[in-house]
């Protein structure tokens, strides 16, 4: 049943991305052009952003770009820290800026200045308002994230349902907020989730300690809690660790978006049941390709434009259905990891220590 659904989703994604390719020319990048790039994630020291960096480096080498690929971020996830880095990039005349934004609006004056100065601004992972970006590289469809999380909650809590809580990143993270909103919408609109009761949303600020304490706070405040759903890789690992330390594995389940590398032990010992993710390495790779194509003038940021992103195949720029006036490239799809397919992904990990691919 689950495999069928995943197969179906993949079919749709394939259809959406491949179909326009038949109708239009596919734009291919010309390697060797000099473009200075900045990859600006939300913060330093987060494994998924390092993976995105790896992906960007791969594309950088593949496209034989003689320019620089800079990887920099604030030490803590903050919009003002990102503003400083963007302003420095404008001064340096960086050509392509790739941002995972800490705030939907606060970066706007700076990214708009970058656009005026002639730089290409592409967001990935977490977008800004369309007035300050050209294209957003969406890892997965934001509304699909809601369905995936609701399905995982339903599988874990069962038909009879029960209480669950969400442990998110920072209160101002636009991606997490969109996913939570999407999940709430799915829960309300579909009667099959009627017995799932969302009792609280707490924020661990993508900090392991804060997230750990928030998870402990949840089990104290809600004795009947059956599940902690963390749509952030830091949060899910911290919550699983907290349940392990409290001896609550099996009583309070942990699920959400996690890195296979970090979650392996918790799935093995039963502290986390199931989680989902996409490949951040692919996300960095795809983002780099889009930025390179835009900055070298090979491609315009317009809906309907189809291009080839190296090893990942063809993609099409489309209107973002979740944000009015915005353009996006949808990467997708989700991979779901649990004990059933543990052997597959655990073996994969030893060969290539990366998520999701």
């Amino acid at each position: 049943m689950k495999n069928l659904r995943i197969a179906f989703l993949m079919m749709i994604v394939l259809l959406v991305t491949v179909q326009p390719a038949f109708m239009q020319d596919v734009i291919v990048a010309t390697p060797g052009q000099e473009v200075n790039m900045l990859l600006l994630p939300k913060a330093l020291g987060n494994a998924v952003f390092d993976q995105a960096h790896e992906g960007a480096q791969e594309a950088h080498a593949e496209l034989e770009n003689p320019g620089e690929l800079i990887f920099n971020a604030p030490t803590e996830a903050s919009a003002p820290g990102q503003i400083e880095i963007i302003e420095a990039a404008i001064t340096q005349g960086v050509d392509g800026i790739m941002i995972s934004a800490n705030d939907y609006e606060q970066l706007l004056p700076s990214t708009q200045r970058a656009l005026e100065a002639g730089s290409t601004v592409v967001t990935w992972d977490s977008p800004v308002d369309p007035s300050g970006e050209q294209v957003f590289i969406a890892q997965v469809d934001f509304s699909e994230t809601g369905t995936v999380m609701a399905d995982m909650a339903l599988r874990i809590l069962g038909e009879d349902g029960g209480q669950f809580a969400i442990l998110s990143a920072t209160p101002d993270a636009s991606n997490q907020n969109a996913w939570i909103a999407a999940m709430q919408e799915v829960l309300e609109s579909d009667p099959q989730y009627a017995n799932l009761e969302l009792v609280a949303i707490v924020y661990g600020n993508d900090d392991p300690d804060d997230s750990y304490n928030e998870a402990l706070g949840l089990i104290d405040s809600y004795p009947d809690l059956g599940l902690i759903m963390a749509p952030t890789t830091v949060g899910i690992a911290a919550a699983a660790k907290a349940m392990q330390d409290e001896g609550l594995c099996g009583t309070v389940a942990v699920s959400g978006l996690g890195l296979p590398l970090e979650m392996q032990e918790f799935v093995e010992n039963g502290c986390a049941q199931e989680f989902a993710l996409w490949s951040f390495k692919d996300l960095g790779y795809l983002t780099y390709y889009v930025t390179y194509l835009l900055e070298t003038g090979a491609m315009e940021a317009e809906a309907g434009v189809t291009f080839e992103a190296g090893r990942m195949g063809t993609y099409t720029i489309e209107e973002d259905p979740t944000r009015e006036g915005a353009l996006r490239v949808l990467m997708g799809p989700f991979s779901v990891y649990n004990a059933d397919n543990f052997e597959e992904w655990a073996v994969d990990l030893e060969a290539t220590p990366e998520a999701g691919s």
Partner: protein
Amino acid sequence: MNLLTRFSWLRRWETLLFVILCVVIVINTQLSEHFFNVDNISNIFRLSIEKAMVVLLMTFVIINGEIDLSIASVMGLAASVLAFTYEAGWSLPVGFVVAMAVGALCGVINGFFITYLNMPSIVVTLAGLIAYRGVARILLEDRSVGGYPEWFTGLAQNGMIGSFPFTVILFAVMFVACFIILGRTAFGRYVYVIGNNRAGAEYAGINVRRIKMTIFVATGLMAAFAGLWYAARLGNIRANAAEGFELDIITMVLLGGVSIFGGKGTMLGVGLSLLVVLNMRNGMSLANVSGNVQTSIVGALLILSVLIPNWAQSLQNTKWWRSFVERDKPSLTKGETAKGEAG
């Protein structure tokens, strides 16, 4: 004699900062050809102006022998009050006045507990740090409030007076005002005297409470103003605005040669320390030095700023140094030195 050595030490500390500043600027010009770019120079100030404003007042607080940990929370609270009133449909100038009043009130609360109930400022303002932030969170919860008029956000983002950024002019005016108040007025003198010896100041008839109260209220007002400026620069406001700024602010004051025990330091030193830190961070950003390394370097500089004066002090106490000094100034006999130290 005692006074003389103290002043020569100060002079040397500021000279050292000035030398560091020159070195930083030279390195920056080597690292990036964009450093002397007009946009970049204005960026140096524009991106950290809120901290710089509060640093000026924090200098008074620390020289006076106190500390204020609540400033960043006051900044966040003032910004949140403005957002809250704006959301409720009040006009921006009215919200501005209310937010400033709230800032002053925070200063009054801090000052009251510290001066009238004689509680340690580190405890009172730590409570303030938590409580004022809490109020901000109650007001805005997890919402982000934006959509302010262009004149408000434009002023902080790219306002110009002639060919100078408004931000730079404003800060220069504030700096000169604080420089004069601390260094050239009776009020400034009292600030030092109280920081050096509170009991002595009281016996000398100085109204210690009023001066401390004035400083805390002024700090609250300045923090509120800085918070509003921060709100204008970012264009939207959340309850966590300016979180964690207090440590950066205190760092810059201490690096300026202000003693954490009070009574020592000058506005000039703090101004130089501001320039050193801002230029250094800007240069490192232009050289793509990662944030982690930047933080460590500023930390190392702070430790040095405490160590160097101590080393200098112990060096002065060594026999070798004394004989060296005495050889240099043959007119100074041992008896006179002893008398000078005793007096």
